[in-house]
């Protein structure tokens, strides 16, 4: 199920879910982590006029070179935390994409390559469902080389409010642990 993923350049990452699930913050954390890894990054966000609910999308392009087009067309790495976002975005991926989908989403037309993981359920076990975004980022860090784990940790420390720092660091670790160690990337 977990094939070794070799990251293309540019690496196009799309996070999606509902407003309020920390989709935009998740993108910022990935962008910051990739920046710590010494790469060029562009982060864009797209959301409806509602402050909560409504669908939300956040994209990061990572490259060793300057980035021309800032948005993602076919994602190489896809994270999805809500059914609505799943229907909207799960097909706009590149052929060898790593797609991590929350397993509470009912996917009737899913691709065989999609990896369903208990992101929200793991976050609930940490007593904070809001950390499902970071659980997902942990899983992506393990599966898809999006950034060095230590850089993701540093980015979380930089961007998450102090009172939520610990629970988010635990969410990162829990996310990394959702992925079999054979699939873990080096470094």
């Amino acid at each position, binding site marked *: 199920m977990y094939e070794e993923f070799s990251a293309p350049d540019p690496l196009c990452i799309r996070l999606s879910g509902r407003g309020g699930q920390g989709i935009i913050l998740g993108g*910022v954390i990935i*962008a*910051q982590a990739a*920046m710590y890894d010494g790469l*060029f*990054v*562009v*982060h*864009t*966000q*797209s*959301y*409806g*006029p509602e402050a909560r609910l409504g669908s939300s999308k956040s994209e990061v392009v990572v490259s060793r070179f300057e*980035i*021309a*087009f*800032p*948005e993602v*067309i076919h994602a190489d790495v896809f994270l999805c935390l809500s059914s609505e976002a799943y229907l909207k975005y799960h097909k706009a991926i590149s052929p060898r994409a790593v797609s991590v989908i929350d397993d509470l989403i009912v996917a009737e037309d899913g691709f065989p390559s999609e990896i369903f993981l208990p992101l929200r359920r793991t976050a609930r076990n940490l007593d904070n469902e809001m950390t499902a975004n970071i659980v997902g980022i942990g899983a992506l860090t393990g599966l898809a080389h999006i950034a060095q784990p230590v850089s993701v940790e540093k980015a979380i420390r930089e961007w998450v409010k102090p009172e939520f720092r610990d629970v988010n660091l635990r969410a990162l670790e829990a996310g990394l642990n959702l992925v079999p160690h054979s699939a873990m990337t080096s470094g």
Partner: protein
Amino acid sequence: MRLVQGNEAAVMGALAGGCNFYAGYPITPATEIMEQMSRILPSRGAVFIQMEDELAALGAVIGAAWGGMRAMTATSGPGFSLMQEHIGYAAMTQTPCVVIDSQRVGPSTGQPTMPAQGDVMQARWGSHGDRAAIVLTASSVKDVFDVTRLAFEWAQDYRLPVIVLLDAVLSHMRENVELPPVPDPIARKPVAVREDQPAFGSHPFIPFSGSTRTIVSGLSHDERGMTRGAIGQDAEQIIRNQLAEVDRDYKRIVQFRRYRLDDATWAIVAYGITARAARAAVNSLRESGLRVGLLELVTLWPFPEQTIHELAASVQGILMPELNLGQMIWPLKASVAGLAPVSSMGRADGELFRPEEIVQTINRLDHRNAAISSVIGGGKHHA
């Protein structure tokens, strides 16, 4: 190196340009500019005011400028529409100020969170009457910093409201950039005022304070600010002076970037966020062997007529993609003046053009040209 959002870069650029007064009314996608100004300006001994609406916001900015402040506001389409009256007033009263408009889909409330480039004509012609205008745009977070800083400099130099056009994607986009540290507030020395120095016309801007009495009017006025009934040439003279000053510094003000244009047989002319897709399209078309280049406009107004005219003479066609249903295509066509065929791509659905769409359009145009030149023989078509 920091991860910086477009709107944050606008704030830093404004501070680097000496901004010490902000009045505004929040609106998506420009709100972060106001939010950050509300935190930063008071701590620098500068002034931040949230006004009751956008009319009042630009009114306060104009008043602050008269008092010698480097003043700005930021808004989006609906607020920019409301500001048009005061943009004309700032022009007639020769008041330096900066207005940022982060464009979203319009008209009216439109799509608050989605990008557009639909205010490019409004930024030039939105208020009634003629006036000189400087309108800048940006395609990267670093650009946003640079043009906002420049806007403050040029507002002072030319005594004009200078407009910076961003869009919803750029305002919210984050890139890793190296920005210079924000300079400490500068205690500016007051401009020396002679008793007989006229307040208007081609003179440096003098803050309205101290012992000088200055009459300000949106009515036509002479150089002392005196309104004279039914004498239209006063107004025309003020506008002509401003136009002449901007015209004289055309080379300084009209900024653009040439990207892989030197041997190009096709040119894309684009501005703002659309230039990013165009650059990616140029790279991909070059890989397929087609010699395509990009002219990215940084200054939209004054329009780079000469540059476009010269470009048109060297290519077999020009394509302009823009996030509206065809606006800057008109000054482009006028500048090309028939020297090359011009094609327009427009959209106003809140999505960016994808590089692939621009690639396909250029390929289609190129095939059509190839077909035509094989019929008539020769032509400018590349081998």
